[in-house]
């Protein structure tokens, strides 16, 4: 492997300081200087968007959509209110990066939201925070108060006369609210059921007003880009994959946690940083981009670099950068059973193929795992999956299908063994 990365970090650099979350730490290291400069120089929105485009920053929530392009969709001359929304509803199994930004660098997220608000002409910003991390909802509200007191939020930001405020909105237990339109419904005080698109949020978003929704890590990257320039951000990563990226690594590694490294780093290097596979064990499979991403066997993932292009070429998804590592002790049927239960539990129930199909998939995997599988079950699972994918309003349907079809594709033998022998071949 190459030497461990020691270059600049975009989001979690505050962890190298004694009080990572404090306003003092942030300001002493250049924090809020990009905002001050923009307001003092009245930087045109088009120039800011241009820098974000040059940076090749792509949505860090999982979809990887170019952020600069998304920002350019917002109507410039719209007379009414517009909103900026941050998606911190991080509930995809394996993903736990945004929580660390909120906990350890809350002000960079605030500055990013304020710069976004200025650029897009928004009236206010809301950050939707995953319900289960309620302690961080409370700590981030304190950071907002600090920012207000210091003049970085409110009616006269940095003495410019420009008014903008940011608020925290809590989730309370619904994975689907990570889908941007379900999230908007939820902020409006409704069930979190996704909307039909189009219209897209840039024309019909929160309260029916033009709205831009970005992931936490995306927005937190903006101040760094504006301080150092889009080109410097791009140079941290590789073409079309700008920046460093936080990888959340969990499962069978010695040191699970978040590692912020350049886009394009070999997977093998990340594995070493995370202490390697559990002592005495060998790598079996990796889910490289959150639980929705197709699983990859060890030999395929070990040849990948961590960027959108390499992971896609290998047949999976870069997603949110959540890497779930499994060693040779894992029964793939049991692992899939748990993931399938998750999607069944979290389907919002709006679209029949997802509501019914996720239940079917769970029940069939469950019976295979419990020694009641039938020879036709694998074909049945593939067929149910094919009848969900592409037939639902949001991507949760496809997200539920990805694990099922990829687990069967790469580990079919294990499923067949379960069905034939009514027990597991792992350790058999």
């Amino acid at each position, binding site marked *: 492997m190459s030497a461990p990365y020691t270059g600049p970090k975009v989001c979690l650099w505050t962890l190298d300081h004694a009080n990572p979350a404090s306003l003092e730490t942030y300001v002493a290291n250049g924090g809020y200087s990009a905002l001050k400069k923009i307001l003092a120089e009245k930087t045109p929105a088009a120039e800011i968007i241009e820098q974000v485009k040059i940076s090749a920053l792509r949505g860090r929530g999982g979809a990887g959509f170019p952020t600069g392009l998304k920002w350019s969709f917002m109507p410039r001359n719209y007379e009414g209110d517009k909103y900026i929304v941050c998606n911190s509803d991080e509930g*995809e199994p394996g993903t736990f990066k945004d*929580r660390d930004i909120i906990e350890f660098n809350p002000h960079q997220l605030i500055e990013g939201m304020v710069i976004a608000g200025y650029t897009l002409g928004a009236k206010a910003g809301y950050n939707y925070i995953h*319900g*289960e991390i309620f302690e961080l909802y409370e700590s981030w509200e304190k950071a907002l108060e600090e920012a207000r007191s210091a003049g970085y939020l409110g009616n006269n930001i940095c003495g410019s006369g420009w008014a903008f405020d940011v608020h925290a*909105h809590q989730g309370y237990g619904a994975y689907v609210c990570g889908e941007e339109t379900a999230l908007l419904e939820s902020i409006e*005080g409704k069930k979190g059921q996704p909307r039909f698109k189009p219209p897209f949020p840039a024309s019909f978003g929160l309260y029916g007003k033009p709205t831009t929704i970005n992931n936490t890590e995306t927005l937190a990257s903006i101040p760094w880009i504006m301080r150092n320039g889009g080109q410097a951000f791009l140079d941290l990563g590789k073409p079309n994959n700008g920046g460093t990226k936080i990888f959340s690594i969990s499962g069978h590694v010695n040191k699970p946690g978040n590692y912020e490294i350049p886009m394009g780093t070999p997977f093998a290097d990340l594995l070493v940083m995370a202490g390697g596979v559990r002592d005495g064990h060998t790598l079996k499979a990796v889910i490289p981009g959150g639980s929705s991403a197709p699983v990859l066997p060890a030999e395929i993932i070990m040849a990948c670099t961590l960027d959108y292009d390499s992971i896609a070429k290998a047949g999976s998804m870069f997603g949110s950068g959540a890497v779930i590592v499994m060693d040779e002790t894992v029964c793939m049927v049991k*692992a899939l059973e*748990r993931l399938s239960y998750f999607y069944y*539990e979290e389907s919002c129930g709006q679209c029949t193929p997802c509501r019914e199909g996720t239940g079917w998939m769970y029940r069939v995997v469950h019976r295979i795992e419990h020694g009641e599988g039938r020879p036709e079950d694998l074909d049945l699972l593939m067929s149910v999956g094919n009848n969900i994918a592409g037939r639902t309003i949001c991507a949760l349907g496809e997200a539920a299908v990805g694990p099922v079809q990829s687990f069967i594709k790469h580990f079919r033998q294990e499923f067949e063994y379960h069905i034939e022998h009514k027990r597991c071949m792992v350790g058999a």
Partner: protein
Amino acid sequence: MTLSAQSLLSADSLAQIDKEVAKYPADQKPSAVMAALRIAQVEKGWLAPATIESVAQYLGMPTIAVYEVATFYNMYQLEPCGRHKITVCTNLPCQLQGADTVADYLKQKLGIGFGETTPDGRFTLKEGECMGTCGSGPLCLHNNHTMHAHLSPETVDKLLDELK
């Protein structure tokens, strides 16, 4: 008859709800419903029908609209539960890191399964979905808001001893 929120909830809870309402445009009070239900639940321990009705009335929403929210999000507690609700994440990353062992230990120690409450009303055990903190698993939430990470039978013992 619907009891007003003013007569059902404490002044402190109402002040907290008012603070949430103030975050949103004046004509968008329902945006505060998730927070209002959370605040009411913290005070009452669970969301009784009368509590839900009073929240609806306070925010000027149809009661059914508040029920839709209370039944959709799984951290709202719609029936009485123990003083200490322990929600264990059993999803894949936590499972790989030992969540099943922790869940089995909790079940055996408390003598109850998921979705059940101890006869003395002290503990309710629940199975949870991803809490977005997988790197520190196995995890549980105490009464929805306090997370305990890196669980093992030893740390579970310590936690349960602290919760009277």
